[in-house]
């Protein structure tokens, strides 16, 4: 256990340069690339002296290394800047929109796992048979599907067949549960509000199916190829030789070992999930971080754009840390 603690400590320390690099990349992309926030926001006809004044106010005419220092020091204080558009601190805005994204992500992950893992196991079991081929074609086509298009096609079906499922927003007006965590499903469960629970779940239905299906394509492929590896292992042959039923061999012997490497891939899945959420949210008017980001882009609200991208960078760094720690816990062979 002591070795594990050392590993976790080292990993936490190693996270610092990784996050620093991510933040530096974000900073360079947003500050050094051509693009003038003042003129982008107020038009090119703004008088030069006013533009100059605004640049000074926003600290954009300092040398870039000083700007970089300001940026990092601000982040240390939890200062993500003030939105040009709403004049509110960006961090506050991020935290009002983030629960929606989190809720969508959780439910999409549930859909993705519920669809992806059984199909992956099934495809590996039927390896080389037509049903395996079908699963693989399905996985490729799902992965190739533009997520916003899938969402719109589902909406179209709902409209054409008059299915009573909402195609936009998170909840019907006046049905919001009391704000505790910002996750509507959890909040309505905590307050025992069945009406808003059903409404929230109904609103979650189409967006989480859209995002979940696209993610399941990756899960099908990962599960299938890992299952094929473990199915060829000696202990599986031994289990079969002992006359254990195929179903038990699949689940108890092959699947348990096949699922371990999937944890390693969670980081990649998570990146896909975040990017997919941006598009899904915009397709379904889901008031999450992705919708907020696009609103900020449309309004050229640079501090807010920078804040949201920085926030994404922090999440990515944090998740990769968690994934590594979980991996170390699951697999005692991993050593630092």
């Amino acid at each position, binding site marked *: 256990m002591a070795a594990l603690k050392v590993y976790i400590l080292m990993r936490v320390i190693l996270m610092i*340069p*990784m996050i620093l*690099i*991510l933040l530096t*990349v*974000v900073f360079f*992309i*947003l500050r050094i*690339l*051509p*693009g003038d926030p003042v003129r982008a926001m107020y038009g090119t006809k703004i008088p030069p002296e006013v533009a100059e004044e605004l640049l000074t106010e926003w600290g954009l005419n300092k040398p870039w290394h000083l700007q970089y220092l300001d940026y990092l020091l601000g982040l240390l204080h939890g200062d993500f800047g003030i939105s040009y558009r709403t004049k509110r601190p960006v961090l506050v805005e991020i935290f009002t929109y983030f629960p929606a994204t989190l809720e969508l992500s959780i439910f999409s992950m549930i859909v993705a796992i519920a669809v992806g893992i059984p199909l992956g196991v099934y495809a590996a079991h039927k390896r*080389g048979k037509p049903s395996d*081929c079908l699963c693989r074609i399905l996985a*490729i*086509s799902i*992965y*190739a*599907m*533009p*997520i*916003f*298009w899938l969402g*719109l*096609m589902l*909406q*179209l079906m709902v*409209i*054409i067949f008059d299915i009573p499922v909402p195609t936009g927003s998170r909840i019907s007006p006046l049905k919001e549960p009391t704000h505790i965590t910002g996750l509507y499903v959890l909040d309505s469960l905590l307050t025992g509000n069945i009406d808003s629970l059903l409404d929230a779940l109904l609103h979650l239905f189409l967006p989480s199916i859209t995002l979940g299906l696209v993610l399941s394509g990756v899960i099908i492929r990962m599960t299938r*190829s890992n299952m*094929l*590896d473990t199915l*060829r292992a000696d202990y599986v042959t031994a289990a079969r030789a002992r006359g254990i039923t195929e179903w038990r061999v699949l689940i108890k012997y092959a699947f348990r070992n096949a699922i371990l490497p999937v944890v390693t891939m969670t*980081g990649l899945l998570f*990146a*896909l999930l*975040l*990017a*997919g959420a*941006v*598009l899904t949210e*915009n*397709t379904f008017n889901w008031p999450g971080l992705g919708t907020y*980001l*696009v609103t900020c*882009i*449309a309004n050229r609200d640079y501090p807010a*754009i920078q804040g949201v*991208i920085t926030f*994404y*960078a922090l999440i*990515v*760094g944090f998740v*990769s840390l968690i994934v590594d720690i979980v991996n170390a816990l699951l697999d005692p062979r991993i050593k630092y």
Partner: protein
Amino acid sequence: MNAKPDDRKPLNYFKGAILQSFSKLGFLSSLKGGVEGYMMITGISILIFFLAIAVLAPYISPYDPNAMVGDPFLPPNPKHIMGTNQLGQDVFSRFVWGSRTSLLVAGLSTVIAFIIGVPLGLISGFIGGKLDRTLSMIMDAIYAFPGLILAIAVATMLGPGVLNVAISLAVVYAPTYFRVIRNQTLSVREQLYVEAAKALGAGRMTIMGYYIFPNVIPSVVVISSLCIADAILTAAGLSFIGVGISPEIPDWGYDVSNGQRFLTYRAWWIITFPGLGILLTVIGFSLLGESLDEILNPKLRER
């Protein structure tokens, strides 16, 4: 410089690799249950189809894609086989010209990502040390970042345009090339023939250019196919969000985004066809990449 054997020249190497993969392809499809051959043929056919309509767009499209050529919201009919959109533009003509935009952006971004990623990967893997560690860390950080969000950030800063979108995509995909090339270089540089070249007094550039590069480049063929597939999707996402190519250029992603406002009118044809265009081209590149991967990396064929 000493005389080099002919098969070390990149061009000849490519010829060999292509011939080899084709002979393997014939072998595979004759095998019972070898699906790779069919996957590749399907992928290539889809790609040839879209490449053809992209190249022949001016001859195929019946109308000017940006002109108002009929009443708005016409459902598919003999005059407009894919109907018209809210501005009375012919959806089919926009579909045909959209393939050109999509392939152009994806191709351009791949070239840029290749130019950035491959030399850096070669140098990083070959020289090693601090340079390698720094470059790898930077590239890994970019690689870990959600691609679409990174592309959104870059595209927002650069503004609309074909080249700008291609650059934003290249930023996302350059680390992939870097990683593959670097890892391959690490193993290839330990080979005996590299040592022999060193012993003969070949310079670093010669070793990298003539001995390592031709041996690491085949792995790029596979990932570039998969990266193009991904790049088309990401580019469509950028257009959908509104940071893509300017509206006057016909573009599938933009057309889908534009059509979503008219879903309630049940104007399905405005979004269905451009979406299918994206879906099919991405499937084409994915199939090609996957089958190439299984054919060129026989160790994985078991999967």
